[in-house]
């Protein structure tokens, strides 16, 4: 069976579920709002980073992205939905690949949108203090923001397929993103730099002191995501539905 028709079906699934559409909208709103709030905070920090301030909301927008990715897959694990899906598309690898594309592409689109909105809202709130952000630097960060949010949504999607539960996935990822990273946030130059969120967000900083550059950082996040998706694929293919 054609991949295109399976993808069409999976895309329809995303489009026809209100919580998923709401989740995508939230990615943009949350990211922009928190970036604007960060810009209003004028505490005169010595190592003030205007670029990171303009993308500060990504730390919260990623929770919405992760929730979207987890929900898109967890919808299959309730009430025998997976059985109906796999009865329609018995080629499981192809089915999960279509699912990942139907999660990743919209997440990338809203991620880019969130990047634009975040940069606009963040710089507007920063006022004069945003002068340190170059045009090219800002554009790169917008692209990185979109890629990063898409990767996080896919990471959650893969993990949900492996754990067969959106609650379990969010129970791991949300505390991890909101707490663990903040706690180890100031300890740079060690293994913490290789955590998926820390590595991917290097691209959103104007001043960098770690080993990873913006694109190598995103590559590390992509590796985490690929691992999660492979584990999810393995689970979908091997286990009884």
């Amino acid at each position, binding site marked *: 069976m054609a991949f295109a028709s399976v993808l069409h079906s999976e895309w*329809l699934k995303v489009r*026809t579920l209100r919580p998923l559409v709401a989740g995508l909208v939230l990615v943009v709103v949350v990211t922009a709002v928190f970036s604007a709030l960060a810009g209003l905070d004028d505490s005169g920090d010595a190592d003030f980073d205007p670029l990171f301030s303009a993308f500060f909301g990504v730390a919260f927008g990623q929770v919405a992205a992760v929730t979207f990715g987890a929900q898109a897959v967890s919808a299959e694990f309730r009430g*025998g939905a997976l059985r109906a899906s796999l*009865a329609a*598309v018995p080629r499981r690898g192809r089915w999960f690949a279509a699912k990942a594309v139907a999660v990743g592409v919209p997440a990338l689109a809203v991620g880019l949108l969130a990047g634009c909105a975040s940069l606009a809202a963040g710089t507007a709130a920063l006022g004069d203090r945003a002068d340190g952000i170059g045009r090219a630097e800002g554009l790169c960060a917008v692209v990185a923001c979109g890629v990063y949010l898409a990767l996080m949504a896919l990471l959650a999607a893969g993990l949900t397929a492996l754990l067969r539960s959106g609650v379990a996935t969010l129970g791991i990822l949300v505390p991890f993103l909101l707490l663990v990273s903040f706690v180890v946030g100031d300890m740079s130059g060690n293994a913490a730099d290789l955590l998926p969120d820390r590595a991917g967000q290097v691209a959103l900083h104007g001043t960098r002191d770690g080993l990873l550059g913006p694109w190598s950082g995103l590559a590390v996040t992509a590796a985490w995501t690929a691992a999660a998706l492979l584990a999810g694929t393995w689970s979908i293919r091997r286990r009884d*539905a």
Partner: protein
Amino acid sequence: MTSIDVQDLTKEYGATRAVDRLTFRVEPGRVTGFLGPNGAGKSTTMRLVLGLDRPTSGSATLGGRAYVTLEEPLRHVGALLDAGAAHGSRTARDHLRVLAASNRLPGRRVDEVLEEVGLAPVARRRVRTYSLGMRQRLGIAAALLGDPRVVLLDEPSNGLDPEGIVWIRELLRRLAREGRTVLVSSHLMNETASFADHLVVLGRGRLLADMPMRDFIHARVEPSVRVRTTDGAVLRDLLARHGYDAVEREDRDDGGGDGDGSGGRWIVRHARVADIGRLVSGAGLPVLELAALDGTLEQAYLDLTAAETEFAARPASPSPIRPQEV
């Protein structure tokens, strides 16, 4: 024609054997009732046929092909497994559109099946507002979406109202008349008896019976005759003289309102209504009631499972099961 072939199928979950070396074939053009108590392996067998679970050994094929090798399987096989498969936040129409898209089925099929199962007026409502019966109808709509030659329904009458039960019965009969292969699981005997032509009976994952429903009942429940006359004592003597085994049954329903001075109803085992009728009228006894008692599927089924259950508590009297009075 497309039949379902189950060959030496076995499925183990850890130490439990849910399906145990099962072999049977479901033929097209008739409704096959798939019977067994809860946990007998009916649903597991259906999942194995649909390639959703991996068999420990053995195989299940549809028209000679494994389900997972079918291109656009909904065009060949339709299945209802769980009434809860549709997401509550999606509308019934969208649920079917998603399924149709994956198998490149035309969009008009969605509206056709919604019409067919009677959900067209509520098709744009969210599934969470549906009753269990409506969800069941939606599941049946999904099974019919690709106009499949093979239909598998797991407990389709669950949650249906009386009209729904009549409707599903007519639907199953019609699908069989159209030459489709129809496998319907149930643990409700009277319900199954109303639509099945053929039976496949499971117990603890094993095949207990695979035969036409009539044969199944006749092989297990002896035919009897119910007769009532004005003089029970004379009737008893008459039947005894001719070697019939008759027992008197208390009347349950007339509340003594007959006022004809008769005894209760007599049940004559191993008898045909024509023989008893001739005998009684030949003896000049006024016949108040004379009826053939056909065995029910329920009796036949209980007889079978009692025989199969190794340590089943035996009834106080070891007599064979008699037809139920109706």
